[in-house]
């Protein structure tokens, strides 16, 4: 058996098709099998990442035996592999957290685990595929899973948030589809490397139209302003594990697709400036909105949008240091925001309003949970010695190196807003007067384990950032090396090594 990137997609699909049958043998298998699959995929990630880093060559896998431009190919480079691995690890932790999170009937539980696994598969597929239409198909898989999971509780607001997400998401996919069509009519191929190679023959007016179509469509998935109206509702109405999955997995896939299209496919003048400007607007507006929120999950959602704006700014600067910082921030955001969602949602567990005022005095009731939340809050605003500090620092240095001092000022100003609203919550947790009648729920053991792992990662990466920087340097190089990407996909060896 060859360990190869296609396992990321084929194995979860096989499991998803089999789960309804497994549930006839033993109902508990419905919950356990996805965990086993994700654990196996985490092991696959380790093996493949090791191989990629050691050989220095990306793994190019052909599907159905047709080489790159003719068939679909999967590209597992240090960049895509890094993202896919992060997503898989986070999915495993979120699965652990959602194991027995809430008591639901058997049939919804079955659907939940299928949909959750497909959410992960779709996002991983977006990242590792090398074919633009295949990316669209994976986007749709992710999208349908997200719509259904958003309204999983079948309550009023959940259904409404799901419907809203569905309308915006389908519009996004239509734009992407139109972009793919125009692109195909111009270059006659769907392989991303070949598109990139032939891109300079496309007339520039056409190029801009296509880029706008892609930026609109993918910007909706990447929560870029003003296309992010769906996000706060989807985050706050979906089940908590799904909320953290959105922050840790789905948004990352959206940002990846936007970055891949702008960095590799197009060489349009001004696209980077566009990213910076959209990033600044997204960052500033969402952080101000986050400050006004009284609902905890909506606040976290707006903060998440703001962080994505920050990521876009960093990518827009476009130098190696900035891309490195952006990738670091994506990693940090996945870890930290998941921790915040996981710990925060237990404070408002049985509480439909999810107001921040209800958190008052929870620090004494749940010291460990409050401690996790505090770590997350300190880390995400970028206080040393936590992981978030380093990514912010690298991006600031990159901005200063490019003498974008205005940008530095904006980022620092926004950081102050961030500090204000996160500290407000933490202060309420520890110093607020306890609300007696609030109904709460003791976290599961799996929840404690996954939260401890995340908190440990935040602290350890904070003290020894070298653990991840090696991967991040390779990833940033792989993203910026456009000709290397084209070469590897179209003319590379592409042989899979047997294990």
């Amino acid at each position, binding site marked *: 058996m060859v360990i190869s990137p296609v396992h990321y997609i084929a194995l979860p699909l096989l499991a998803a098709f089999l789960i309804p049958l497994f549930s006839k043998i033993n109902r508990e298998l419905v919950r356990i099998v996805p965990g086993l699959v994700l654990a196996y995929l985490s092991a696959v990630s380790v093996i493949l990442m090791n191989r990629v880093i050691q050989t220095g060559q990306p793994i190019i896998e052909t599907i159905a035996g047709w080489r790159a431009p003719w068939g679909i190919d999967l590209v597992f480079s240090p960049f895509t592999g890094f993202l896919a691995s992060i997503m898989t690890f986070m999915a495993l932790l979120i699965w652990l957290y959602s194991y027995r999170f809430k008591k639901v009937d058997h049939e919804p539980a079955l659907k939940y685990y299928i949909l959750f696994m497909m959410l992960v598969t779709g996002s991983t597929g977006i990242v590792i595929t090398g074919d633009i*239409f295949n990316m669209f*198909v994976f986007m*749709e898989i992710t*999208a*349908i899973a997200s*719509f*259904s999971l958003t*309204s999983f509780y*079948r*309550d*009023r*607001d959940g*259904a*409404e*948030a*799901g*419907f*809203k997400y*569905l*309308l915006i998401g*389908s*519009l996004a*996919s*239509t734009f992407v*589809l*139109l972009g*793919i*069509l125009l692109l*195909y*009519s111009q270059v006659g191929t*769907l392989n991303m490397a070949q598109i990139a190679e032939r891109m300079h023959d496309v007339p520039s007016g056409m190029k801009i139209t296509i880029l706008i179509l892609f930026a609109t469509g993918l910007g909706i998935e990447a929560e870029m302003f003003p296309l992010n*109206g769906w996000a706060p*509702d989807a985050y706050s*109405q979906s089940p908590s594990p799904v909320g953290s999955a959105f922050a840790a997995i789905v948004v990352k896939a959206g940002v990846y697709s936007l970055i891949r299209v702008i960095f590799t496919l197009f060489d349009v003048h001004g696209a980077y400036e566009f990213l910076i400007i959209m990033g600044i607007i997204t960052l500033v507006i969402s952080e101000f909105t986050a400050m006004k929120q009284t609902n905890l999950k909506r606040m976290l959602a707006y903060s998440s949008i703001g962080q994505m704006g920050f990521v876009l700014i960093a990518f827009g600067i476009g130098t190696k240091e900035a891309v490195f910082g952006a990738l670091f921030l994506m990693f940090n955001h996945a870890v930290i925001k998941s921790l915040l969602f996981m710990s925060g949602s237990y404070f408002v567990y049985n509480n439909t309003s999810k107001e921040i005022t209800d958190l008052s005095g929870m620090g004494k009731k749940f010291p460990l949970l409050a401690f996790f939340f505090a770590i997350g809050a300190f880390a995400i605003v970028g206080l040393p010695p936590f992981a978030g500090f380093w990514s912010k620092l690298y991006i600031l240095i990159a901005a200063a190196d490019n003498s974008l001092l205005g940008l530095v000022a904006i980022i620092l100003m926004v950081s102050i807003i961030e500090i204000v609203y996160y500290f407000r919550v933490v202060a309420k947790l520890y110093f607020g007067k306890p609300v007696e009648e609030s109904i709460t729920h003791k976290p599961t053991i799996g929840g404690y384990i996954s939260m401890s792992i995340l908190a440990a990662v935040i602290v350890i990466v904070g003290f020894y950032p070298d653990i991840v920087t090696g991967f991040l340097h390779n990833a940033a190089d792989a993203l910026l090396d456009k000709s290397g990407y084209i070469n590897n996909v179209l003319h590379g060896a592409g042989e899979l090594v047997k294990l």
Partner: protein
Amino acid sequence: MDPVLYNKIVTFDIYGSAIGLILIGLYALLVKKHLIKMVIGLSIIDSGVNLLFIAVGFIKGGTAPIFSPKGIELVQKGVTMVDPVPQALVLTAIVIGFGVTAVALSLVIRLYRHHNTARIDNIKSLKW
């Protein structure tokens, strides 16, 4: 009939229908206040995009991309076939569109059950 004029008419018909469908669907999606109307708008947009795909793949004088024993001879004689790739992509897109529509309609039914109405001006418990 003048071939140039013919070409213009046919181009106008096909592209016009497709772009018209997209615009009408967008209008329904953005202006209409009834959930089912919005979903109808979505499916009209899908139809328009699918038509555009096939139109881009079409080649004048081309035959369907299926080889019959006679077809192979024809191809060897230099008769072209239309581009098969957009057709394959549209097959995928149609099925995906159906899936999205089904989920959307189930959400409409859910929402109607909760609110006893399917108009968004009566629903808004979240911000739109």
